[in-house]
C-alpha cells in the first residue's frame, strides 16, 4: 500500500514565543529554532507501525515550505519513512491551510496515495483545517482524532477520541487519517537510521511541476485577510511569592480572601 504522512516544520514550542511581523503579517522565522512538529513524531510512529504490519507497503513523507524544511523531513526518514517529497516555491509564501491542502492534495493525487496520515492539528497554528481540506480536494473520506487504526481489506477502521469518550468509525480507502496527539510513542532515530536517511530518495517539486496556478495559493489564495495586528491584552500583574515552607498556607489564605473555599 502507498502510505503518505504529511508533516510540518514549526517553531520549537519549548523555546519560542511566536510573533508576527507587522509589515508582512507573517510569522517571524528569523532567529527562531525550527523543529519537526512534535505532534508529527507520534503520527510518523503510527504510520510506520501500520506500514510494517501491512507489509509490501511504502511510507512517503510529504511537506511544503522553504528549503529549511528538509531538516524536518530528514528526521522523518531517519525515523523510518522510505522517501520524502518537499514542495517548495517562492509563490507559496503566506499560504493558509486551504492553500497548503491544495498543494499537498495535488502531490497525493499524482502519487496515487491510498492512505494519508496527518496529525490532528499542528503545534503552531492548531487550526486542524489541513487534513479535512486535503480529503475534500481528493474527494475521499477523512477519519479524524484517531488513537488506533486498523486496515481490513479496502477499509480503514479507527478508534477516535471524542469529548465524552471514544468512537469506532470506518470508511473505505483511500482516506485521510488524523492521529490525536500522543496516541503513539515516538520513534527516536538511531545512528544507523540517521546515516541511512542520507541515502533515501528525496525529491523537490515546484508549483509548475504540479500544474497549480500560483494565484490559488500563497497570500493571493488565502481564505482570510489580516487587517491589523495588535498587542494582546495582558492580565494585571498578580502577587508573587517564593515557597519558604508556608506556600500552602499562603495559597489557602488567598483562596479564603476571595471566598474560594
Amino acid at each position: 500500500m502507498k502510505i503518505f504522512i504529511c508533516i510540518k516544520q514549526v517553531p520549537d514550542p519549548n523555546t519560542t514565543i511566536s510573533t508576527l511581523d507587522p509589515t508582512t503579517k507573517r510569522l517571524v522565522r528569523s532567529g527562531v529554532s525550527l523543529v519537526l512538529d512534535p505532534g508529527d513524531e507520534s503520527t510518523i510512529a503510527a504510520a510506520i507501525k501500520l506500514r510494517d504490519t501491512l507489509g509490501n507497503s511504502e511510507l512517503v513523507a510529504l511537506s511544503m515550505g522553504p528549503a529549511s524544511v528538509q531538516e524536518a523531513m530528514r528526521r522523518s526518514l531517519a525515523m523510518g519513512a522510505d522517501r520524502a517529497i518537499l514542495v517548495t516555491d517562492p509563490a507559496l509564501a503566506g499560504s493558509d491551510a486551504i492553500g497548503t491542502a491544495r498543494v499537498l492534495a495535488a502531490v497525493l493525487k499524482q502519487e496515487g496515495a491510498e492512505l494519508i496520515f496527518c496529525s490532528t492539528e499542528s503545534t503552531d497554528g492548531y487550526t486542524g483545517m489541513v487534513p479535512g481540506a486535503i480529503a475534500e480536494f481528493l474527494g475521499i473520506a477523512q477519519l479524524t482524532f484517531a488513537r488506533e487504526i486498523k486496515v481490513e481489506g479496502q477499509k480503514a477502521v479507527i478508534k477516535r477520541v471524542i469529548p465524552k469518550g471514544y468512537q469506532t468509525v470506518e470508511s473505505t480507502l483511500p482516506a485521510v487519517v488524523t492521529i490525536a496527539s500522543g496516541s503513539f510513542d515516538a520513534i527516536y532515530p538511531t545512528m544507523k537510521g540517521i546515516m541511512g536517511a542520507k541515502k533515501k530518495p528525496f525529491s523537490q517539486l515546484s508549483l509548475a511541476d504540479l500544474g497549480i496556478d500560483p494565484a490559488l495559493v500563497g497570500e493571493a489564495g488565502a481564505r482570510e485577510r489580516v487587517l491589523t495586528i495588535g498587542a494582546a491584552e495582558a492580565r494585571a500583574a498578580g502577587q508573587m511569592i517564593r515557597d519558604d515552607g508556608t506556600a500552602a498556607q499562603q495559597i489557602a489564605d488567598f483562596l479564603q480572601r476571595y471566598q474560594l473555599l
Partner: protein
Amino acid sequence: MANTIWVLVELEEGKPARSSLEVLGKAAKLGRAEAIVLGAAAAEVAPTLGQYGAEKVYVHADAAYDQYLTLPVVETLSHLIQHHQPSLLLLASTYALRDVAARLSVRDSMGLITDATDLAFDAEGLKVIVPWGGENIVTVTHPSQGPGIVLARPKAFPLERYEERTAKIERLDVAVSAGAQTIRILETVEVQSEGPALEDANVVISGGRGLGKAENFSLVKELASVLGGAPGATRAIVDAGWLPYSYQVGQTGKTVKPTLYIACGISGAIQHLAGMKGSKYIVAINKDEHAPIFSSADLGVVGDAVAILPELTKEIKRRKA
C-alpha cells in the same frame, strides 16, 4: 439590510449543544440569526431554538447525520448556502464542526477564519478578532465575496435568552446522498468521569510536566476532590501518555472558564493559556520563576508543586472542617 448569520446547531443526545447555543446568541446580536439543525432529533429541537435567538430554523430530521460523520452535514449545508447566500456561517469550534468547516470551505470556495474570540460587522464589512500566539491579537476578514465561515473559540460568548422569540420552522426537502454516507460510526462509548465535567467545573486544578512523573498526578486529583473541582492537564502530559485526551485543557483540548484555576507544574505554553486564560482567579505553582504562566497568575508561587500540593490539600481539609 441586516446581515443574516447562520449557525449549525449540533445535537448531543438529542439536545442542542451548549456551544452551538452560545454561538447562536452571538449571531442574534450581529443580525438576523438562522439555525440549521440536522439529525433524528432535529424536529423536536427546532422549536426550542427561538428562545436562543433564531428567527428561522432549517430542519432535516434524518438519522443519516447521526450515523455518518461530516459528509452528510457538508452536503446539506453546501446545498443550502448556494440557495440562500447568508452573510456568514458561524460555527462553534468543536471536533465535528472543524471537520465540516474545512471541507465546506474547499467545496464552495468560502472564506475561512478559525479560532475567533469576537466578531462584528462595520461599514467596511466583517471584522473578526483572533488571538495569535501569546502576544498578538489580529483583526481579520474574509477576502472574497459571498458567504464565509468563522469558527469561534468555545466559551467565547455567553448563553443569551430571547424569551419572546418564536422561530419560523422550515423543513428541508433534501435527501442525503449515498456518496455522503461513507464515514460510518460503528460504536460510540462514553467514559464516565468522577466529579464535575471539566468544561463545567467551577474549580479546575491542572497539572503539567513539572509534576515530574505520571503517578504525581494523583496529587492534582486529591486537591481537585477537596475543592469540589475537576482535574485537568496540559497537552505535554497528555502527549506523554500520563492521561487520556479528555483531560486536556488548551486550544485544542477543552476551554475552561472556572472561578478558580490552579496550574501545578505548568510552564504556560500558548496552547495551554488559550484554554484557561478566561478563568476568574488563577493560581500558578512552578519551580521556574520565569515561566510564562506567572504573567497570567493572580497568585504566583515559585516552588515545587509536588511538595506543595499535599500540604495544600491538608490545609484546605483543615480549614473546611
